[in-house]
């Protein structure tokens, strides 16, 4: 029997004691409060208290979900439906929240779990410390404490042993020791059982998962539509730019060259003038093509990746910009491109609207997430909503499951944070 096993059992015993206390106390407190809050809904007051109590209940349940994963490797996913992003504020928002929470089946399963947790969950958990600690009492009896109890007329029972003599007390001590040994072997399993019991109640059910999948499909369909629309618009823009710009200039150049061919002997001065114009046209065609390429896929991005591309972008801004990059590799090209243009659009917004004289861009990657923050010391008051440039960025990131958050109190500063899940290579 290794010391690690004993140590593990003792830790499991301590956790069992903790879980027993918490499941009993927490169960009673949350269940009573939740039932009261819901019961008071018809009176009105419950509408305000229910979301509050349920929010705390969810936090409590989430804490146990985390403990289940950390202590016993039992993974319990979170089943709650997310709130829609554009919730109303104030009293009406609270009513909406109450309604949405009561409609969520996970709420009712939480309440069922509280009942099971404070009974069966408690019993399973309390066994873990009990198996270890009961031995002490057996030994205390065996060391002579049985005698005064017996003499005082107490019919002391140790488990199923009626202790009336030293022999009985010795049996008790032996039984206690046996229970201790048993505890060493079963304690971690007891804790795991406690969490498995919880999992059957507070993990998402099949129908909840199906609903979640359906929502995910809806979301993907929506972002795909956005992506298709955006790329179609982009293609139209490129086609138009080529047609009106570089292509037209090349045609003009060809015409000039034709004229030059005819004039070169009869009017060399005029031919020379046209040659200069042709060269100018070719130069301008090149500039237009270059700008077009920069708009599709900036050369620095292709050559150096996101970090240097953003640095190069910052160098062209009229506002002093600090760029901090912490990327240990490159993301896939489409992700890089989306991130680059998102940053570029945010910076354009800052220049156009914020009236800032300093900008900070911070790029880093950790735990499978590319995080970008664009902060300025401008006048603030930027909002996410229909029609703002920020929703364009949000759509762009949405295609890659990325999200955008804006913090911009009136008076500034404004901080735009973007997160895109991706791996670097």
């Amino acid at each position, binding site marked *: 029997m290794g010391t690690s096993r004993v140590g593990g059992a003792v830790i499991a015993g301590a956790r069992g004691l903790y879980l027993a206390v918490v499941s009993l106390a927490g169960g009673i407190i949350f269940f009573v409060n939740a039932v009261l809050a819901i019961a008071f809904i018809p009176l009105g007051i419950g509408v305000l208290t229910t979301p509050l109590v349920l929010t705390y209940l969810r936090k409590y349940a989430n804490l146990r979900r985390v403990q289940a994963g950390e202590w016993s490797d039992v993974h319990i996913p979170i089943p709650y439906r997310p709130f829609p992003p554009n919730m109303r504020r104030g009293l009406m928002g609270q009513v909406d929240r109450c309604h949405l929470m009561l409609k969520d089946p996970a709420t009712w399963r939480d309440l069922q779990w509280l009942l099971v947790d404070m009974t069966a969950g408690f019993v399973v958990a309390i066994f873990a410390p009990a198996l270890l600690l009961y031995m002490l009492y057996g030994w205390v009896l065996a060391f002579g404490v049985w005698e005064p109890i017996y003499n005082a007329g107490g019919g002391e029972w140790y488990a199923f042993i009626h202790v009336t003599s030293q022999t009985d007390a010795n049996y008790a001590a032996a039984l206690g020791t046996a229970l201790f040994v048993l505890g060493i072997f079963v304690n971690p399993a007891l804790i795991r059982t406690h969490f498995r019991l919880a999992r059957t109640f507070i993990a998402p059910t099949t129908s909840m998962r199906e609903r979640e999948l359906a929502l995910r499909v809806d979301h993907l369909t929506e972002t795909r539509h956005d992506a298709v629309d955006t790329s179609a618009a982009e293609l139209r823009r490129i086609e138009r730019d080529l047609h009106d710009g570089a292509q037209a200039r090349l045609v003009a150049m060809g015409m000039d060259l034709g004229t030059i061919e005819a004039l070169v002997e009869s009017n060399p001065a005029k031919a020379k003038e046209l040659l200069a114009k042709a060269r100018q046209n070719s130069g301008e065609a090149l500039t237009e093509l270059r700008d077009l390429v920069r708009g599709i896929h900036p050369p620095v991005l292709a050559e*150096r990746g996101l970090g240097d591309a953003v640095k190069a972008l910052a160098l062209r801004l009229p506002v002093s910009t600090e760029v901090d990059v912490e990327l240990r590799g490159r993301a896939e090209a489409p992700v890089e491109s989306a991130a680059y243009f998102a940053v570029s659009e945010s910076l354009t917004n800052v220049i156009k609207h914020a009236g800032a004289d300093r900008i900070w861009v911070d790029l880093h990657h950790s735990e499978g997430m590319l995080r970008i923050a664009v902060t300025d010391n401008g006048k603030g008051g930027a909002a996410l909503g229909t029609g703002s440039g920020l929703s364009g960025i949000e759509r762009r990131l949405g295609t890659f499951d990325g999200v955008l958050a804006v913090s911009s109190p009136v008076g500034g500063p404004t901080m735009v944070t973007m997160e895109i899940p991706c791996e670097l290579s």
Partner: protein
Amino acid sequence: MRVVLAEDLFLLRDGLVRMLEAFDFEIAAAVESGPELTKALAELQPDVAVVDVRLPPSHTDEGLQCALAARRAKPGLPVLVLSQHVEQLYARELLADGTGGVGYLLKDRVFDAAQFIDAVRRVAAGGTAMDPQVIQQLLSRRSADQPLGALTPREREVLELMAQGRSNAAIAAQLVVTERAIAKHTSNIFGKLDLPVSDDDNRRVLAVLAYLDQGR
């Protein structure tokens, strides 16, 4: 003067070879990839290298990286970098070691043979040749700030040409004024920008770029 040329597009490489030969340059090697360039620069010890930023096998900034590595191995090795686009980021990397003998031009500048050859010669002689676009970006970025705002339009024009790497004589020729007038403008500029005066063409550019970098 011996030149190593690196350019992956055959047509452009061929054109450059012919143009350089027409102006009495000796082509020591004309290569088409990064590794070949590195080898040629190490073995042939050319007087100047003309290098495309994007080269195989990576087709990213392989040419620029090779040039920078070669200059680290042999400080002051004259390198003229050609690119389809110009970025201040790359210009700074080229100028960073401060030893001179660098150029960074848009590929279109090749169209004007006389100017292009002038740039190659200037770089080979240890001077600089910066593309007007890089300089314009730098100047427009800082134009709102003091003390650049204190310059007269003529002085700004002179500063722009000076930053490209031109000598006073060349600036005088371009602006059709006397060299003495340019010398007066430059000393005014240095005075307004609070820069120590120096005779060296290359030091002038570095001083200008360093100044333009400061405000960030």
